[in-house]
């Protein structure tokens, strides 16, 4: 049993004597006997470090992760290459183990990272104000709604059906508490319907939520869609994929009042969905209504430059029930990973990565769209993800092999059926710099097999589409 506790028996005795009690039990006497747990917790006995490692490594071994199969899964989280310096920096005790920087004199490292992060996020979104980070992407949508409702004193939220289904569902969950009503705007040719949007926005609309690129991968014309929003005095809120902002026009230049999103593509592992960070950027006028932590520059008693948590009168520990948000985490370590990745990519690399994804994606889209039994769901422009329709039901093309003799692994693409019953016959393919041209070829090959049926072919290929003996690697 690893207790990580240093106290020896003689030390315990000495401490008890100093306190003036006979046993530790005496200290628990304030808990009434009828609610004391009169048995040990029904959990396994503690294990040695090597046993815990083996058990959990055994669990990990049964998961088909992106190192074991080329993953074309996206839908908001992507298998980017995380540079080694990210791991080196975020595993330093000085970043890993402090609390929130409540004592700025001894938290300058973390606070300066927040300041740099805010600058970087502000730059890539084209909006002047950024906070230090939120929980993750979809819940940041709820934060945007709360700000917009407070700002406009209106209760209507209009959301594009191209907004991530997790964001839409998160908004619906929170709308019950916020007292908001939600109206959804449909899609046409892979893009948000401008006509439907115009009809949906009224004098009661607090905010309109768009996503760019939208969930189907299509690049929206945010400026054009935003006109109807501005005309009615609602806030234009755009969820963005940060890794596409190297090449896409930033939301701040498209008239967005707020841009937010999932930060995972920036320096964070997939981690089966978290932890990552959310980001939240806005126009200057919303600075005192922002959710979450914000770091600001100031000077110390000797005139030296320093950083502090600022505008704290917005926050729950000061304002309590009148706070702009209840959020008190900034996902600081994850935001640091994002900042280091952005610094590593740098001004040029950030653009190059966007271009690389757009070109490889165009290649993959051409290849897969041309396969027998497949067609593109839409032909709108895309950056890193696209939607494909299949003649054969999607559930049948996914198994990497004939399942007559047992379960086969699933082809790592994202079936749209759960979130979009109208696209039950379609799936998303995501491409990053980690997906080589050979792996794209492998995907096309596997999709061909999926469409035609596997027959005996399952035993003929490894995960790169090369002939092998013994089945899928």
């Amino acid at each position, binding site marked *: *049993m690893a*207790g990580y506790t*240093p*106290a020896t028996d003689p030390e315990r005795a000495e401490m008890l004597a100093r306190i*003036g009690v006979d046993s530790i039990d005496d200290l628990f006497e304030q808990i009434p006997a009828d*609610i004391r747990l009169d048995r040990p*917790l029904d959990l396994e006995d*503690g294990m040695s470090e090597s046993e815990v490692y083996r058990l*959990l490594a055994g669990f990990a071994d049964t*998961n088909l*992760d*992106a*190192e074991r199969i080329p993953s074309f899964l996206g839908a908001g989280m992507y298998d980017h290459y995380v540079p080694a310096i990210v791991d080196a*920096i975020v595993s330093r005790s000085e*970043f*890993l*183990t402090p*609390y929130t920087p409540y*004592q700025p*004199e001894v938290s300058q*490292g973390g606070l300066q990272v927040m*300041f740099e992060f*805010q*600058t970087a996020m502000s730059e*890539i979104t*084209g909006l002047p104000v*950024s906070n230090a980070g939120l*929980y993750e992407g979809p819940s940041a949508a709820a934060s945007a709604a709360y700000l917009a409702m407070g700002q406009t004193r209106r209760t209507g939220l209009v959301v594009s059906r191209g907004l*991530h289904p*997790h964001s839409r569902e*998160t908004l619906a969950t929170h709308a019950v508490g916020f007292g908001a009503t939600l109206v959804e705007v449909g899609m046409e040719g892979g893009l948000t319907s401008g006509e439907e949007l115009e009809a949906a926005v009224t004098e009661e609309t607090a905010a309109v939520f768009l996503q760019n690129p939208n969930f189907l991968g299509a690049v929206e014309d945010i400026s054009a869609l935003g006109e109807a929003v501005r005309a009615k005095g609602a806030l234009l809120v755009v969820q963005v994929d940060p890794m596409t902002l190297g*090449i896409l026009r930033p939301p701040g230049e498209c008239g967005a009042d707020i841009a937010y999103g*999932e930060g995972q593509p920036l320096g964070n592992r997939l981690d*089966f*969905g*978290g*932890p990552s960070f959310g980001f939240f950027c806005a126009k200057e006028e919303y600075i005192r209504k922002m959710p979450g932590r914000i770091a*600001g520059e*100031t000077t*110390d008693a000797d005139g*030296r430059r*320093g950083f502090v948590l600022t505008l704290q009168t917005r926050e*729950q*520990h000061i304002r*309590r029930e009148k706070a702009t*948000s*209840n959020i008190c985490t900034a996902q600081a370590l*994850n935001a640091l990973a994002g900042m280091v990745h952005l*610094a*590593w*990519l*740098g*001004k040029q*690399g950030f653009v*190059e990565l966007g271009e690389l994804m757009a*070109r*490889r994606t165009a290649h993959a889209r051409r290849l897969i769209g041309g396969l027998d039994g497949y067609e593109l769901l839409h032909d709108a*422009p895309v950056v890193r993800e696209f939607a494909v329709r299949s003649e054969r039901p999607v559930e049948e093309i996914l198994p990497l092999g004939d399942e007559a003799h047992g379960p086969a692994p*699933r082809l790592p693409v994202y079936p749209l059926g759960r979130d979009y019953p109208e696209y039950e016959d379609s799936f998303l393919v995501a491409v990053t710099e980690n997906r*080589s041209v050979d792996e794209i070829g492998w995907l096309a090959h596997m999709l061909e097999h999926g469409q035609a049926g596997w027959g005996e072919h399952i035993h003929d290929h490894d995960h790169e589409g090369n002939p092998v003996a013994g089945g899928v690697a």
Partner: protein
Amino acid sequence: MSGPTLTETPQQADRARTIYEKSVPGRRAAQLPPLGEGIEETPIEELIPANLLREKPAELPETSEPEIIRHYNRLSRRNFDLDTGFYPLGSCTMKYNPRLNERVAALPGHSKLHPATDPADAQGALQLMYLLQESLAEITGLPTVSLQPSAGSQGELAGLLLTRAYHADQGRNPTKVLTPDTAHGTNPASVTMAGYEVVKVATNEEGGVDVDDLRSKVDEDVACLMLTNPNTLGVFDENITEIAGLVHEAGGLLYYDGANLNAIMGQARPGDMGFDIVHVNLHKSFSQPHGGGGPGAGPIAVSGRVEPFIPRPQVIREEADGEVFYDLDYDRPKSIGRLRGFQGNFGVFVRSLAYILSLGGDGLAEASRLAVLNANYLKTRLSEGRAGKYLPVAFERHCMHEFVLSGAPMKKELGIKTLDLAKRLLDFGFHPPTVYFPLLVDEALMVEPVETEAKEHLDAFADAIEQILEEAESDPEIARNAPYTTPVRRLDEVGATRNPRIRQPQ
């Protein structure tokens, strides 16, 4: 200026410069892979219409890899951290972060697993989540656990939305939520976000809920009572059964803020006390590193009557023909829905399950017992000497895992405030306790020493307080101008708010 040192420390001499200010045009770190054979270098305008493209690159730093490493390593040395020193921050449970947990979380099978992986190909991950759900259910004494909430604050909001759904299902719509005046600030903020009105309940002389005040405020319009037990004063509310009865009789639910769970693991369980909803901070009691302000996770445990409403998807275990299968259950018609994307902070779940497996049931109980021992020992040490005189304990009784001191006599007699004491502690190499909270105690200091701290660190902390108070008796200016040895000295927070500079100028 008065103080022990007038020369700059090396860290102070190293003036803050941002990565932007170190940027040199043309420098770079990343080398991306080539496009690949057979892929054309099509101009981007041919793929995406020019009006949708960025005109100017974003101003990101231009720097080399060695410069990045040096920059962030130097920055790291301007942080105080738990691995280097004692961090008795009340209600934050700054316990040791085992490195085994980092190792298992980093395994590619965990860290490189896409959240949308088909459950059939993620059985290990789902089994791990299921085991954590079961473990937390046993620890809290409630049957069902949802791991989804991202943090304690989101767990609170989830709990309040569950409360709303529970009442609505019965055709009721109560409007008020009761919270004691000792509650964490997140509690009232979450209450407002859930569309409820906050009603404060007074604290009695023993530091618990004033039951008479509660009785006068409980009626059919009360949706729930939010409590932390032991509360932020480090006091276990002995009347909890009576309190639960009062709220339940009026049709309300009981919400348990698990911030202080580290006091009672294996000793008592919120479910047995009558609570319906509990949030657990995995970054407190279950050793997830705090990361300088996140990540954490705030799973919720609920009673049977609240179970139909929990967020979806939920990890479930199915058994058919002797085969076990772990799945994500979306088919929960009464669910409040999602609070966030995907399944929650899985990386945090890996670390916390590793911690629970390492300690086992007995080890968790022992951790709480030693946390309480350490707190009472440090409280005893601080009730002696000058601390006892200038910093009296707010509630004179045995504490649980933390205790609250009042700096009011110190301020009156020595002319130094709690803030001054806190800043002077930095020069002694200690992170100060939580200050000015709970609001109920004048000049409060909330001290939580945790079980992983050795006795000598508690002694050294008590000795430092004694020394600072002694020093203040002869020269209070020393504390008033502290700290002296930290990377920067006291910072102008008012100026920062008045004239916010929150990014590098363009």
